[in-house]
């Protein structure tokens, strides 16, 4: 016998232990399946999009999707708002760019070096920042990021100063596969999927459950014997590494790294993307990155109006669509399902899953 259908939640309490557990697993995986389906749709869309859309533009979206995923991990699941993630993005971008250009490293090694640099910086910054919470945490991350920006300005022999690092070679993957055209695109797509999958893995892991508990109620987690700072430090470090992956990849894709990559405004963007896409959701950062990068790209002729538009979107998200595009899609899907149930079923007791998509 297979497990109890989720359409009869009323029976959960009455069935035997084994079946009850079966029902629990079924409900959980049902939520998961919808999140995964959306991700698959997006992956397929990105796989075929270069046929009609400029590939470098799509790859830029993917770099920022990875960056936004790192913020989503920290903010959406850890409940920690960092204003300084540009430091990790920028550090990795400079490291990867510098090593690929001046040390002749193959792209994957340069990228790994960039990620490792971000992880290490994240571990140090995280250890300082998690000592405080709320607005103080945010302010510390901001100050530390400013410090990194200052270092980038002060060391033009490494960063290229105002000019930045130009014409970074993409090289050949493992020294064998030249990273251009299709190969580069596939490389980006695989890394983006990897990043999203990694966030999913982390937040659904045993660690992720504790992390959510700490976000929900720090004191309660403490009374259960958890040390909140340790968990927050780990998630901060992981998130920094992921931001680094986005930054390093950006250096290879666009072949330039400039001071804007470590500038504070670059910290706000992944936050905005996460909010627009749907905070705490699996695909939210990808959707958010697509929307924001598209706005910047297609509306760039309007100059400063882009910033105004972004601001308005930001306000709309905060006020009206708290769970972003993904939340909107979930709501629509629920409506459709309710409608169908009402139409087709004499016994309209189908589970109305109005829970948010939770990854």
């Amino acid at each position: 016998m297979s497990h109890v259908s989720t359409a009869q939640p009323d029976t959960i309490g009455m069935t035997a232990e084994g079946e009850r557990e079966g029902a629990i697993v079924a409900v959980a995986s049902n939520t998961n399946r919808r999140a995964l389906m959306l991700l698959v749709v997006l992956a397929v869309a990105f796989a075929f999009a270069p046929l009609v859309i400029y590939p470098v533009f799509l790859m830029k979206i993917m770099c920022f999707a990875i960056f936004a995923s790192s913020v989503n991990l920290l903010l959406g699941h850890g409940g920690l708002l960092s204003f300084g993630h540009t430091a990790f993005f920028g550090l990795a971008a400079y490291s990867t760019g510098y090593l690929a250009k001046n040390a002749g490293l193959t792209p994957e090694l340069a990228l790994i070096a960039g990620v490792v640099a971000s992880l290490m910086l994240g571990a140090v910054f995280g250890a300082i920042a998690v000592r405080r919470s709320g607005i103080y945490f945010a302010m510390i991350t901001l100050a530390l990021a400013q410090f990194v920006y200052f270092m980038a300005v002060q060391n033009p022999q490494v960063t290229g100063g105002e000019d930045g690092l130009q014409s970074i070679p993409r090289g050949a993957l493992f020294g064998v596969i030249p990273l251009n055209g299709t190969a580069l695109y596939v490389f980006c797509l695989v890394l983006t999927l990897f990043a999203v999958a990694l966030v999913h893995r982390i937040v659904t892991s045993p660690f992720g459950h504790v992390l959510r508990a700490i976000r929900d109620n720090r004191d309660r987690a403490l009374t259960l014997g958890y040390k909140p700072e340790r968990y927050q430090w780990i998630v901060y470090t992981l998130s920094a590494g992921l931001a680094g992956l986005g930054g390093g990849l950006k250096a290879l894709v666009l072949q330039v790294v400039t001071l804007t990559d470590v500038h504070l405004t670059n910290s706000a963007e992944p936050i905005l993307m996460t909010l627009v896409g749907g905070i705490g959701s699996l695909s939210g950062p990808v959707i958010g990155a697509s929307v924001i990068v598209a706005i910047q790209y297609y509306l760039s002729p309007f100059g400063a109006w882009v910033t105004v538009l972004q601001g308005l979107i930001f306000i709309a998200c905060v006020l009206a669509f708290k769970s972003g595009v993904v939340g909107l899609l979930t709501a629509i899907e629920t409506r459709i399902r309710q409608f169908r149930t009402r139409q087709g079923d004499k016994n309209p007791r189908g589970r109305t899953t109005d829970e948010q998509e939770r990854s």
Partner: protein
Amino acid sequence: MDRPDHILSCENLVRRFGGFTAVDDVTLGVRKGTIHAVIGPNGAGKTTFFNLLTRFLPASEGRIRFDGHDITHLAADRVAGLGMVRSFQISAIFPTLTLLENVRVALQRQDGQSWDFWRSGKRLRRLNARALELLDRVGLADRAQDTAGQLPYGRKRSLEIATALALDPKLLLLDEPMAGMAAEEIQRIEDLIREIAQGCTILMVEHNLSVVASLADEITVLAQGSLLAQGSYAEVSSNPEVIRAYIGNEQGNAHV
């Protein structure tokens, strides 16, 4: 003061907030296996006292011993690890987690996998049976999949107790577990506490005196931070000072 039959004891415990002394020189022992109630008028310092014992607040003066350890300077998470688990006056749950996850998060700590961010969450399913058992004990098994934030107030308290029980505590500190509950819920929690007390010591703050009368083996009365009286319900309730403190409070004037 540190007697072997005391699971928890404190000596000359003091806590000041600026110039104000919220807990004033309290010396107390909680005997193993008993239900020990702390009562006192509003603002007597009961919650502050709990915060000191569980190391949520550092004491200004005094010593605390728990189960053979000096915990005066231990961190709060370590104290919990030793087996002293508390509930909060304002019910504390994890609102976005399901009921099952709420309890499982507590089970998980002893399971020793809480750091494994690379592992699949499916590993946690092994804990489902035990979590359901605990939810069943507080009458919440049929809502295991609901998000905890949706529960009515009284049910949240039950969930909080189930979560605390998951840690298999040696000493359970309950801060007004029945505040704001309907009569039939109070009865259920009362029965539950009596049942829990078979396996662990309980120290509880409670305003409902009939509950205290029927549950507590030992009662400590705090007033204005100081220990006013201690003993059985009969002893305490006939103590003229206690009566004065309570009546004084009812007239809206605790400073007799």
